[in-house]
């Protein structure tokens, strides 16, 4: 029963992945008759049309754009099946997978740190606000959430980089590119990264902390109104035992869902922030690929992000079913 559901779920995930790959392949090609045309050299005066066609065909083969779109699609799928995302059009023609591997850690530095900070501080603050319900701590969190939910993170980032970066010069407003090229795991290199990452992480984490805080608060308050909390108190348990053993344990369930959703957006969520701070991550890579019409790189990044999100969703569901015995996998939510 349970294993069959797991298998079904994994098959469904693969099916969705296949559809996503198809979409990622065809969407950038809408309305483009010959994507390789921008790489053709000008037809010189003495060249016959036939020779020119041959040159064009060579270029198409070089970029993997020969044949009909459907043939290209089949070829791409075959490649993908072997784990090959193709070759980027960037100068030097690096492999797409290498480009991603180069930029991914830098994005993860930002997003994972941000997520962890948001989660931990958010839960602490939210629990405190729920505990002090109606007092100033709670009201402060409520007011903060009304403001930060309406503030786009890139505006916070701009303000921070203006004030802390340019006016006070506490943190670098632009990333020092030597940080990327000269990274060697030395203590100094790591501290440079932290120093450079402070502003981008902080500007993302403000919203994250408040949002986790608010949902923890609401969840804790909802759970503490449940009758089993009264039972726990009637048993004569200490306050700590009631809070940690009963209230928080149940209140964390919606937080797990939120965390799962945030994990699936871990890679693609910082495009604008990366642009503001000139951070050499996946977002910047994607923007460059987009402006260069670098199809393999664009598709590669999108497919990679989707695959990541799919796996994250799958894991969240499984973890949730472990945490909440009422959820039996296989039943429709």
């Amino acid at each position, binding site marked *: 029963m349970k294993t069959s559901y797991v298998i079904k779920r994994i098959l*469904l995930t693969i099916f*969705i992945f296949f*559809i*996503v790959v198809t*979409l*990622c392949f065809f*969407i*950038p*090609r*809408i*309305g*483009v008759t010959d994507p390789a045309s921008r790489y053709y050299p000008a037809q010189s005066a003495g060249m016959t049309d036939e020779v020119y066609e041959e040159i064009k065909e060579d270029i198409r083969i070089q970029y993997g754009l020969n044949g009909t779109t459907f043939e290209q699609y089949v070829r791409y799928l075959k490649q993908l099946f072997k784990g090959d995302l193709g070759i980027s059009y960037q100068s030097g023609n690096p492999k797409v997978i290498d480009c991603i591997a180069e930029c991914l850690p830098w994005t993860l530095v930002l997003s994972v740190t941000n997520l962890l900070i948001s989660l931990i501080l958010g839960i602490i603050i939210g629990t405190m606000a729920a505990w002090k*319900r*109606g*007092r100033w701590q709670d*009201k402060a969190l*409520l007011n903060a959430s*009304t*403001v930060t*939910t*309406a*503030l*786009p993170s*890139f*505006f916070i980032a*701009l*303000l921070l*980089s*203006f004030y802390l*970066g*340019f*006016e006070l010069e506490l943190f670098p*407003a632009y990333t020092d590119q030597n940080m990327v090229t000269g990274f060697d795991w030395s203590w100094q290199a790591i501290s440079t990264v932290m120093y450079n990452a402070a502003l981008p992480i902080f500007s993302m984490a403000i919203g994250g902390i408040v949002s986790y805080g608010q949902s923890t608060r*609401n969840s804790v308050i909802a759970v503490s109104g449940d009758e089993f909390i009264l039972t726990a108190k009637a048993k004569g348990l200490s306050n700590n035992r009631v809070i940690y053993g009963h209230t928080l344990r149940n209140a964390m369930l919606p937080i797990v869902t939120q965390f799962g959703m945030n994990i*699936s*957006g871990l*890679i*693609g969520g910082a*495009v*604008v922030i990366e*642009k*503001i701070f000139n951070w050499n991550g996946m977002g910047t890579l*994607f*923007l460059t690929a*987009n402006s260069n*019409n670098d199809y393999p790189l*664009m598709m590669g*990044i*999108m497919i990679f*992000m*989707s695959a990541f*999100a*799919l796996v994250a*969703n799958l894991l969240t569901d499984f973890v949730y079913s472990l945490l909440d015995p009422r959820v039996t996998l296989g039943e429709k939510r």
Partner: protein
Amino acid sequence: MKTIQGQDQEFATKILSVLKKIGITCLRILEGIWSFIKKLWKHKQGRVGLIIVALLVFCAVFAPIIAPYNPYDVTQRAEKGLSPSWDHLLGTSITTGQDIFSMLIYGARSSLSIGLITGLVIAVLGSLLGIAAGYIGGWVDTIIMRIVDILLVIPTLPLVIVMTNVLGTSYAVIVLVFAAFGWTGLARVIRSQVMLIKNANYVKAAELIGASKWYIMWRHILPAVSNLLIMSTALTSAGIMVAEAGLSFLGLGNPEAVSWGKMLADAQSSGAMLFGHWWSILAPGIGIFLAVFSFMRIGLAMEEILNPRMRKGSSMVKVFKHLNNKYLEEVFASMDDGSKLKGEYATCSINETPEGREMLACGEYAPSEEVAVTANGEESKRKEDDESA
């Protein structure tokens, strides 16, 4: 001749009846909107949202009258990078010399129009698909939910970037692209709500007496989800406005239009920070903030009106201040058998509000600092109240 006249008359009455129907529907929709606005107006947060939205809409509609300069007019440009002055309230932009205050007002047009139109398209799309999935069920449900699954997995912003790259950056394309990827959340919410209503007895009763599916969808299910729909539309519109600002900040919005996101991008790329021109960053940012903020207030107010249990408890404090110690003693004393009881004395001035009755029905009593009388009759905080009273 007579028959033709008869046909004419028949035709005329038919048209009249159709017109009547359309008129009644329009009236009903207007009435719905009006009652919705009245409901929001009673809610404190909703009122704040409504006022700001009204202000922004006013700015957007009458932009040419309010704004001192026309940012689209090349001849009305001043020196580049001016500081704020009486001529240029918020200075001029560094790249083009356009008046920032005027741009701010004109910017409301693109932000609001994209937010509202996309919000409406999403509302229609999301509710149709959500109701179809929830009410019809079966393979329709499966297909729609699979599409939702797929769209939720693909990273939205990169996909939108690609689409605008391919299709261009006109308003229509931006609205379409956002709508194509934004309906999933709404459809999910509506679907689960519809599945609840579908099993309600009144819907079953309507099915039993032979009402058609379309009739039930139109007369029972749509009204039942309409409040939820308005709420989510307000919230999605807010989200779309953030996304649109982000897109034009990345330089992927409509390049000809004046928009807040583009103003931010121009300010950043032209080095406004280096020159210390904080106003050129703050102004568009506050524009975005106000627009998003107001829509969110409306959405959240709606959520609280729909679901009084969500109430944050802050509104209680004010009421409890009336509850002074003397009054409380009176209440306690009145319970003793000897003292005479007057009817209905125990009610405060606000007792007949619908919210009050709802609160009682849910058994919801939000705690407050003001009342802190413990079991053995000790008084802690109340004394301060008495002194101030």
